């Protein structure tokens, strides 16, 4: 009984010991916050990637793609095993290219990944329609009425050619001018562009946090350049260029995608690239995610080898990124546990001091009949108590910080005027967290174990003090 009473009193009266509590608390809080944020990044990234990528992709080995995607989809549908498990399929035609546009008189050109899609089909596979800014959930390449007005203002019928010529870069002097783009088509082609292509974050005023600036409004013109194949088997390549009007934005909050992806109607891309009824991949969504590998294996078996089609799950495609995150988390955890180990050394030092300070009391207790084991237990329980109090406080603080991390970040950004979580760097527009009770428990147990472990030495010293020498200690 005396052990509990004494530890409790020591806890309340030894202010030095509060340092131990604070160090354990900080260690635990940091570990919880970092773990939650890392787990949040990892979970969210997986979620996002999975949300963007279809479950399974059948890909051609090069950008020339494969013929007759409908036939291949029909073949897959005809397999009873697959037809039961596949929710939706859609062909896409993907190619690299370049986008050009005019922003405040400056010509901007950047590389893009052009994806030709059937909007309704692509929406059924998932990870597309919900990320559209204007036609959320109802993907289409239609221009809204405002966008149409803007188009008209930009291109009054008689000035159309002149303006299109202005938008295009001037041809080099020593070469003949390329064929003029098919700019006079009406109605114009439309395009869904990645949100980050049409927007950037800038610090407009030194005192305010950075703001988002739009460079392309719906209805604005962009020029897309890519290649098309012609000649025998389409092996000879030449550039192809066309003008289109922005009809929507794709905002997945994965900056890699938002900054690089543009979507155009698949039939148009097929036509412009002179590859009718061809696609580069088939996106597949399955009904039950647990069937992922079974479906993949079945598809691999079904598709004849001479078609040279590869079957990948979304995890295969993003494997290195996902693995990197989990390795990063592991290393970070090891490093952060060092913080608690540092707290442990603090406990060792402070406990040693407390044992010296309490030498006489230890002598008294022994004179009153306390055993060595009893004295040992006083200090071990004291360590346990400090560790536990620190861990509980740390958990509370860590959890609170984790829950309010975005509010805290906003406050700090406002207060310091410096953006802590730069949204243009990260994939997410807010800091994702994933508070896992299991890992909180492990962190707590680890912290308490370290606290007890580091109090063993001073506690042993206290227990082995000779009572007479302890009583005479001045």
């Amino acid at each position: 009984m005396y052990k509990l009473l004494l530890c409790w009193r020591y806890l309340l009266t030894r202010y030095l010991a509060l340092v131990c509590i604070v160090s354990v608390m900080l260690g635990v809080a940091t570990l919880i916050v970092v773990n939650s944020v890392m787990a949040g990044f990892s979970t969210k990234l997986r979620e996002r990637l999975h949300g963007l990528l279809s479950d399974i992709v059948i890909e051609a080995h090069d950008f020339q793609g494969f013929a007759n995607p409908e036939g291949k989809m029909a073949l897959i549908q005809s397999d009873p095993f697959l037809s039961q498990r596949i929710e939706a399929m859609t062909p896409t035609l993907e190619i690299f290219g370049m986008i050009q546009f005019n922003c405040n008189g400056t010509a901007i050109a950047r590389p893009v990944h052009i994806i030709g899609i059937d909007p309704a089909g692509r929406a059924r596979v998932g990870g597309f329609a919900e990320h559209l800014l204007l036609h959320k959930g109802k993907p289409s390449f239609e221009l809204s009425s405002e966008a149409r007005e803007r188009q008209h203002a930009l291109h009054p019928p008689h000035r159309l050619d002149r303006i299109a010529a202005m938008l295009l870069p001037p041809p080099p002097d020593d070469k003949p001018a390329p064929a003029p783009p098919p700019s006079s088509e009406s109605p114009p082609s439309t395009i869904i562009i990645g949100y980050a292509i049409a927007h950037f974050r800038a610090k407009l005023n030194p005192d305010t946090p950075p703001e988002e600036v739009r460079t392309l409004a719906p209805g604005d013109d962009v020029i897309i350049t890519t290649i098309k194949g012609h000649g025998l088997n389409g092996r000879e390549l030449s550039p192809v260029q066309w003008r289109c009007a922005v009809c929507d934005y794709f905002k997945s909050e994965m900056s890699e995608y938002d900054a690089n992806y543009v979507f155009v109607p698949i039939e148009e891309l097929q036509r412009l690239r002179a590859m009718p009824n061809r696609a580069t991949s088939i996106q597949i969504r399955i009904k039950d995610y647990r069937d992922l590998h079974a479906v993949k294996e079945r598809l691999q078996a079904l598709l004849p080898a001479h078609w040279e089609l590869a079957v990948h799950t979304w995890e295969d495609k993003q494997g290195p990124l996902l693995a990197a995150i989990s390795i990063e988390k592991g290393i970070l955890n090891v490093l952060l546990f060092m913080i608690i180990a540092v707290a442990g050394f603090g406990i060792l030092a402070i406990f040693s001091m407390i044992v010296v300070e309490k030498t006489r009391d230890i002598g008294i207790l022994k004179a009153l009949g306390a055993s060595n084991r009893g004295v040992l237990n006083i200090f071990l329980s004291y360590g346990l108590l400090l560790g536990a109090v620190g861990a509980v406080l740390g958990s509370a603080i860590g959890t609170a910080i984790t829950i309010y991390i975005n509010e805290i970040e906003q406050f700090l950004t406002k207060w310091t005027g410096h953006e802590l979580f730069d949204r243009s760097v990260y994939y997410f527009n807010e800091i994702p967290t994933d508070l896992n009770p299991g890992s909180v428990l492990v962190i707590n147990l680890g912290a308490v174990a370290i606290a007890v472990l580091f109090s063993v030495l001073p506690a042993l010293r206290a227990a082995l003090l000779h009572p007479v020498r302890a009583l005479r200690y001045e």
Partner: protein
Amino acid sequence: MLDNLPLLAAVNLHKTYRKHAIEVPVLTGVDLEVFVGEFLSIVGSSGSGKSTLLHLLGTLDKPDEGRILLDSERIDNLPAEQRDRLRNETFGFIFQFYHLLPELTTLENVLMPKMIALPVRGWFRQRRSLKQQAIELLDRVGLGHRLHHKPRELSGGEMQRAAIARALINRPRILLADEPTGNLDADKGAEIIRLLRDLNRQDRLTIIMVTHNMEIVGNTDRVVRLVKGRVEEATNGERPALAGWSALPAG
């Protein structure tokens, strides 16, 4: 018949302290017998080994040679747990510097030996009656009004009374007092001695007191003098010896 056997006896005790390489012999063959109900004083100049003798008698330390007998049974070589229990139940200690635990109140200090003796559940089951017992003891030593004060709020005399109450809570058979008045002025010291005398008379509590204050030993039954680690002279005439003081050389 039983009264003729000593309650506590020391036989040929030797104890040497080692400081670095130097050996300092403290006790060099002490023989002593203490009888039930006796109030014995051990006197001697400082460094004569009085406190060491007391620590050996109370099993706080072990002799290098010799034996200590309680009811004719050897206790100096008992295993640690049994010696811990003896210190808790059979012996009560009081010290010159009171040695109360500063974090605890007077009442908690007095209850400390009980808490050491009992496991947590036993303590909680008996808590009420034990507290009552401690309060009665504190009343008896005149500290009934200081139950919830911390030691630093008490005077020297009060602290020593609290220490006496603590020593008595487990109803020990022998009270070992190490210079109990050494830190008190003459009046307060005399009060403490009177209190010990009363306890000795009323409860037949055996008391062994170490002191170098010749003025207070007159009130005790018998005086033993330690010189150079030996009992030089003991006035162990008829028990209870009343004239211990007169048998000593003046000063």
